[in-house]
């Protein structure tokens, strides 16, 4: 069995400041981990994924995430937030073909 927990339902940052969206997972397997972004009234789009290669993964739009097995975490970061980053973010864990979505974190970016 596996699960994923996004620790914050809502994160608010000012434009130009760093972004941190937290994700913890639990899996009995060697999981693959993904971050997806959903802009208002849109479908989900892949930001980045970890599939047992480098633990620091770089994605689109300046986002990156680090897989930390000892902490069972896969937090998403960005050095400097942009207004266009305002969206809903989902962490996903996949193991043994079982896929679990986190509950989502809504990111608000203030001018």
């Amino acid at each position, binding site marked *: 069995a596996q699960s994923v927990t996004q620790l914050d339902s809502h994160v608010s940052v000012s434009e130009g400041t760093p972004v941190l969206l937290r994700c913890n997972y639990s899996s009995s397997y060697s999981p693959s981990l993904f971050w997806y972004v959903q802009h208002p009234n849109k*479908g*989900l789009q892949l930001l980045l994924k970890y599939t047992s290669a480098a633990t620091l993964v770089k994605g689109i739009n300046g986002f990156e995430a680090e897989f930390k097995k000892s902490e069972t975490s896969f937090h998403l970061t960005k050095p400097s937030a942009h207004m266009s980053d305002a969206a809903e973010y989902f962490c996903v864990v996949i193991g043994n073909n079982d896929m679990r979505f986190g509950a989502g974190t*809504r990111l608000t970016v203030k001018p």
Partner: protein
Amino acid sequence: DTAVSQTPKYLVTQMGNDKSIKCEQNLGHDTMYWYKQDSKKFLKIMFSYNNKELIINETVPNRFSPKSPDKAHLNLHINSLELGDSAVYFCASSRPGPHYEQYFGPGTRLTVT
């Protein structure tokens, strides 16, 4: 070109009706999915399907049924609609297996009155 398309974008209907949502992908993918997103943005996978295997989330009522006329299409049929079916439904596709990136459609907002 739209990679994954869904029709209609909005669907308003009354309880007890039967409705369908269509999904098409032009990516040549083998696997397609249906998701339900509730008003709190919580996403639940309903089905995954390739040309060999249908995997059903056991919590999905049997009023919901996916139908695939060909590899590029996976339509969602819903019988005897209920108020609780109101949600946004997303179709997605990927290469075989969930470890690959999924490409999502724009969603269909279903409102049952």
